[in-house]
């Protein structure tokens, strides 16, 4: 297009092609005209008809008339845009007769600087993500090696510990009469500590299997009250020895359930044993079992010292110990609850802990009444 004058050509560029904003305003701030860029970016003249409505003005101090008085000074204004993000422009205001011309300019240097900084930050973030993934893979490999070692060590220790226990029991049965009281105590200590070591090694084997993803279930149809009764026999002895009352309330189960009986026994014994460990002489541990809709519910309630929220959160973490002490100083591997949790979740069950400091703890386990065609998830 040919123009008569240079001014016409410049005006045509400003109104049609320029990325700067250009407004023609009345002295009271109404928008009379806007260039293509301003109309596209702000939808002014369609939705907004006064200049002050385009401006983000948190402090409600925007005074357009005041800005007219200093045409040589740029005024930083944040303009609402159709993208939802405000954009900062340096505005110059020129009074021409009864009109005001407003020119908004982006700070290209600032934008370029910001663009470069954002790119660098993004690159750094991506490089850190790469390092993180690499280190995660390395940690997973090391963890696998640790589990292999743990599994092998535990497996190799099991036999000698078993021998110590057997010979110890043999001496207690056969030779105790020939020993004085002090030596009998030595023997008893060896037996107790060996038994603890055996539990520890068994737990290590379970944990290494769990962490290596080799936690297989041997699912068989089982009459679950029978399994619970067997498990609770061990706990009854423990409770009697400590003077804790074990109160059991069991309902019949409508049908056999497909579970790994040995592992569920282990889980139940673990939960009840824990409750007894944290109970004082004369306290009651309540065990309840009942079917509920399509689930079986098993709960263990004690009146022990309870746990804080922080302790509850790390309850199923290996080797974690709560700040609460067992009432008779019973030893713990710190693995029992983690293994129990794994056993229950492997059966598609849930384990919920409700505990209040100084009031006691209730652990509730639910197991689905699954049929033989369902396969529990690992």
């Amino acid at each position, binding site marked *: 297009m040919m123009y008569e004058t240079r001014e016409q050509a410049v005006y045509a560029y400003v109104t049609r092609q320029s990325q700067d904003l250009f407004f023609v305003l009345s002295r009271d701030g109404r928008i009379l005209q806007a260039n293509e860029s301003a109309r596209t970016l702000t939808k002014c003249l369609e939705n907004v008809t006064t200049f002050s409505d385009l401006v983000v003005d948190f402090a409600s101090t925007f005074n357009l008339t005041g800005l007219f008085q200093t045409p040589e000074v740029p005024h930083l204004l944040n303009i609402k845009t159709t993208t939802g993000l405000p954009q900062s422009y340096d505005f110059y205001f020129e009074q021409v007769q009864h009109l005001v011309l407003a020119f908004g300019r982006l700070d290209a240097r600032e934008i370029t600087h910001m*663009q470069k900084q954002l*790119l*660098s930050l*993004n*690159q*750094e973030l*991506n*490089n850190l*993500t*790469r390092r993180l*993934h*690499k280190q*995660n*893979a*390395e940690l*997973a*490999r090391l963890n696998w090696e640790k589990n292999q070692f743990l599994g092998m060590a535990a497996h190799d220790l099991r036999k000698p510990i078993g021998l110590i226990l057997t010979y110890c029991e043999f001496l207690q049965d056969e030779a105790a009469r020939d020993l004085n009281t002090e030596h009998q105590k030595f023997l008893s200590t060896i037996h107790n500590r060996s038994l603890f070591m055996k539990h520890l090694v068994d737990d290590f084997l379970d944990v290494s299997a769990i962490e290596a993803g080799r936690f297989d279930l041997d699912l068989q149809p089982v009459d679950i009250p029978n399994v619970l009764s067997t498990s609770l026999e061990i706990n009854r002895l423990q409770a009697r020895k400590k003077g804790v009352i074990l109160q059991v309330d069991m309902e019949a189960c409508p049908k056999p359930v497909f579970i790994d009986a040995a592992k569920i026994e282990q889980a139940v014994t673990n939960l009840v044993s824990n409750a007894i460990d944290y109970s004082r002489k004369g306290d009651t541990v309540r065990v309840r079992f009942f079917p509920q809709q399509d689930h079986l519910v098993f709960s263990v309630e004690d009146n022990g010292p309870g746990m804080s929220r922080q302790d509850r959160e790390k309850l199923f973490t290996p080797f974690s110990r709560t700040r609460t002490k067992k009432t008779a100083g019973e030893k713990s591997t710190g693995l029992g609850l983690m293994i129990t949790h794994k056993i229950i979740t492997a059966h598609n069950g849930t384990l919920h802990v409700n505990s209040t400091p100084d009031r006691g703890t209730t652990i509730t386990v639910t197991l689905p009444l699954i049929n033989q065609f369902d396969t529990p998830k690992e």
Partner: protein
Amino acid sequence: MITGALYQNYLTLLLDGDRRACAQIVQQLLDDDIAIQTLYHDLFQKSMYEVGRLWEFNRISVAKEHLVTAITEGLLNLVYPRLFEKASVDSRNEKKVVISCAANEFHQVGGKMVADIFELNGWDSQFLGANTPVDQMLAHIQEEKPDLVGLSVSVYFNMPALRSGIEAIRGNFLHLDILVGGQAFNWGGTEIIKQYSGTAYVPSLDRLTPLISA
């Protein structure tokens, strides 16, 4: 397998800045168990070279080129869990490589993909990132004592910086092998590389594996 139609669709979405759609395509390819080298060469490298070409011929803006690069780099993060898991399970060759971009070279995605291909071939690759000053690169080499150094240059006018990097390495580590590569070489520069001993030019990601897998 990346068909021509899939590649064209991906490139269109990439140039449109549609990060989510590109991520869906890459995730689907990963779910279909595509070989990572194929993904890198036939999708990422091919599309980035095309984007670079469009920029060099003023068909797209710097801002668009940066956006596309940032999207591609984000997509590499989708590959990493599988890449490093595979790299840690496959046999390691106990060799170490340091990959760096030339000084003032702000395009790092090519160098990073090279580092990843080294990982897949059993190497421990350390990626130093974009615009690595020469003294920092030398200090890292001194500390890590790699078996090989890779230098990446994407923009032709950074070729002098690449030469400075090579000369600094050669001056400090006489027998350390150097591999160079990047889109900048589409405009020339391979003759210059031949002047330096123990320095080789690798024209493409798919030519890298045969060199380093032995």
